[in-house]
């Protein structure tokens, strides 16, 4: 492997890993803030106990998101210095805004929330968790604005002298159509993630009959949130795919394994591609499905890989403009599949637990616990699709990934950091899961260290 491959693996591993924690942080922070609000409004202790229980799991997860996020801020410069030089003028702005506007807010107010149970007036303490949650959402917006610029660069010009991208319109960058549709998709995805997490653990608690009453509340809340979020993910994802068909036709053609331009294109359910010859050997389709999804019309024209390749050659010169079709196709399908399965589980869960019911037998708990993994898989596959589907570009139509890597980087150094980050992250994953499991098992009202503890609030600094 050369420096480029190693750097791509490192970016992929560290970023997908970081994004395991991010959606859970975003979704759970809002759910915890909502539970605390419910306590604030009603004064019922069940809401306070739920706030503490879920708050603790939220903090364990949040810490991982924070520390893995540090790497994200620096690795553009470390491994992608040519990219950083080329786009810094445009791409650096949303990143710096994220730090100044969002990071400070979420970490400062979260510190106040964790340690402020007995130091702040109740209203101010409630405001602290809301401000921290809002910070995480704002943070997502700026990062998605930066990423969307790589998918669909706007508001810039190429300086012919320096050969670099220069910002000409910050409003255009921050209101990029790609950002506006990606943001709700990611935020709904975050709620689906937090919903599945909360639902799975709540069901497990009910099944072992530990504080079943309060966990019924969080189970029903979580399943409802999951269901609504799944609908939001589907609608925003549909709009996003239509925009992508227009902005990055190659990515969507690869996602559908559609080789030639077609009108009345079918939606592929299962295909085995023959990439060499640019066709599918097997393809099971829903007739006219793709045309309908992509263009809102049964006989709409959709571009195919081979034809887009010819068009790109004419526009950008000779070269291979195809992403790895198999990865684009399957990551896209599996993302949708896992997401849809999570939605079905939430719906089934709501039905099975209606009006105080709870299915006996271990199968329900087992499925609910396994269901926690579904949104995480869907999130990861979504990012793998959108980033790998953009290849060979790092900034679509403007800069190729091969030209973005640090020219001074050497194989031993990058290999060392790739292995180093991966090992440390693997250890941390084991530690985090063990810790989460421990606190799930301990249940609510368990006290430890200087964390929020209602019973001994006066003593818990």
């Amino acid at each position, binding site marked *: 492997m050369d420096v480029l491959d190693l750097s791509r693996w490192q970016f992929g591993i560290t970023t997908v890993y970081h994004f395991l924690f991010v959606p859970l942080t975003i979704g759970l922070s809002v759910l915890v803030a909502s539970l605390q609000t419910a306590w604030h409004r009603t004064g019922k202790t069940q809401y306070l106990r739920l706030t503490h229980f879920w708050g*603790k799991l939220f*903090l364990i997860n949040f*810490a991982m998101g*924070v*520390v893995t*996020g*540090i*790497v994200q801020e*620096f690795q*553009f*410069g*470390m*491994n992608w*210095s*040519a990219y*950083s*030089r080329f*786009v*810094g*003028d445009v791409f*650096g*702005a949303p*990143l*710096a805004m*994220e*730090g*100044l*506007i969002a*990071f*400070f*807010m979420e*970490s*400062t*107010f*979260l*510190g*106040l929330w*964790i340690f*402020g149970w007995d*130091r702040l007036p109740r209203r101010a303490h409630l405001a602290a968790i809301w401000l921290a949650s809002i910070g995480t959402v704002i943070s997502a917006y700026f990062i998605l604005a930066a990423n969307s610029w790589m998918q669909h660069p706007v508001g810039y010009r190429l300086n012919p002298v320096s050969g670099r991208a*220069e*910002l*000409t319109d*910050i409003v255009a960058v921050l209101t990029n159509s790609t950002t506006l549709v990606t943001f709700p998709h990611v935020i709904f995805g975050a709620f689906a993630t937090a919903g599945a997490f909360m639902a799975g653990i709540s069901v497990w608690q009910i099944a072992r009959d530990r504080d079943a009453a309060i966990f019924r509340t969080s189970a029903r809340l979580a399943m409802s949130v999951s269901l609504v979020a799944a609908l939001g993910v589907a609608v925003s994802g549909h709009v996003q795919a239509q925009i992508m068909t227009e902005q990055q036709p190659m990515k969507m053609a690869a996602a559908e394994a559609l080789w030639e331009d077609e009108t009345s294109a079918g939606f592929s359910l299962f295909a085995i591609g023959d990439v060499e010859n640019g066709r599918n050997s097997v393809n099971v389709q829903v007739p006219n499905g793709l045309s309908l999804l992509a263009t809102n019309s049964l006989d709409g024209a959709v571009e195919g890989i081979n034809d887009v390749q010819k068009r790109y050659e004419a526009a950008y010169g000779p070269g291979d403009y195809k992403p790895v079709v198999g990865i684009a196709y399957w990551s896209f399908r599996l993302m949708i599949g896992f997401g849809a399965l999570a939605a079905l589980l939430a719906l089934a869960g709501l039905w099975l637990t209606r009006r105080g019911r709870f299915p006996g037998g271990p199968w329900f708990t087992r499925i609910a616990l396994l269901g926690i993994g579904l949104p995480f898989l869907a999130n990861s596959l979504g990012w793998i699709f959108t980033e790998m589907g953009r290849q060979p570009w790092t900034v679509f139509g403007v800069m190729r990934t091969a030209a973005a890597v*640090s*020219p*001074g980087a050497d194989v031993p*150094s990058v290999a*060392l950091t790739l292995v*180093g980050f991966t090992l*440390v992250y693997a250890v941390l994953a084991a*530690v985090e899961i063990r*810790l989460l499991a421990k606190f799930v098992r301990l249940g609510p009202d368990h006290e430890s*260290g*200087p*964390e929020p503890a209602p019973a*001994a609030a*006066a*003593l818990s*600094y």
Partner: protein
Amino acid sequence: MELTTIWFILIAVLWTGYFVLEGFDFGVGVLLPYVSRDEADRKLVVASIGPVWDGNEVWLLVAGGATFAAFPEWYATLFSGFYLPLFLILLALIARGIALEYRNKSDSTQGWDRTFFWGSLAPAFLWGVAFANIVRGVPLDADHEFTGNLLTLLNPYALLGGLTTLALFTFHGALFLALRTDGELRQTSARIGRQAGLAAFLAGGLFLLLTQLHDPKPATWATALVAAAGIAAALALIGRRDGWAFTANTVAVIAITATLFGGLWPDVMPALDPANSLTVANASSTPYTLGVMTWVAAIFTPVVLAYQAWTYWVFRRRLTAPQDQSPVREGS
């Protein structure tokens, strides 16, 4: 004032904020095994920075992001050139953050405390190494790519810079602990703090002297003298007037950072061959980007400073170990 000047100063301010604030966090981590007698002490030491360390670390992230936006060439050269030291710093910060957050949630704290110690010591040392190299200059080619290797960065002057920040931050942490705790812990912190302060004075004095002899400027002579005076004053006041001692060393940290950035100006990364140096002019973004970012900074920086200051106000009281079984409480 030119926008590039404003952004050079702003980035210097962000690093200063980072060193002042995370400086004492690092110091607390380095001192943890030396000042605490038992688990109750250790809990208290960790709790002293518990509410604020994460917010303090954001100063680094914003410094990184601001450098990316305002001086992309600086960001690209610095972080790709200092690849391995930065990797070590990142690993240390990751391990340290997790140790801080997970120690009180785990059954065994020993491993986490060791992680916290090394995760604090390594960056406290390595930031000094990095900044010494930035100020002294490194080999860069005409495309501003770093052409040295790890050993280029580990020269005696840079190692002295590392010792300086390590001793200075340890002293800063001791002053912070003396300010935030009481009783025996406060006395021990002051006692160990004196040694760290003396080391900071000697290493820092020599480091700043060498820096000045290399590139003497009247303004940085002044800031270097303020730094020395600040450490000396903190040494004189430690254990008696905790608030003033901490303030004096805060002034010293500010003055040292100002000396380094003052020495750097108008370069941002001098090259051994001056023709290849990165300067505020050739490393910067366009005036439009700098203008946009100036507005953002002008609006949000005061807000951030206000709520961070409020956090310190909320957690201003000294921590004491209570008589009952509960771990830590805030005294009045």
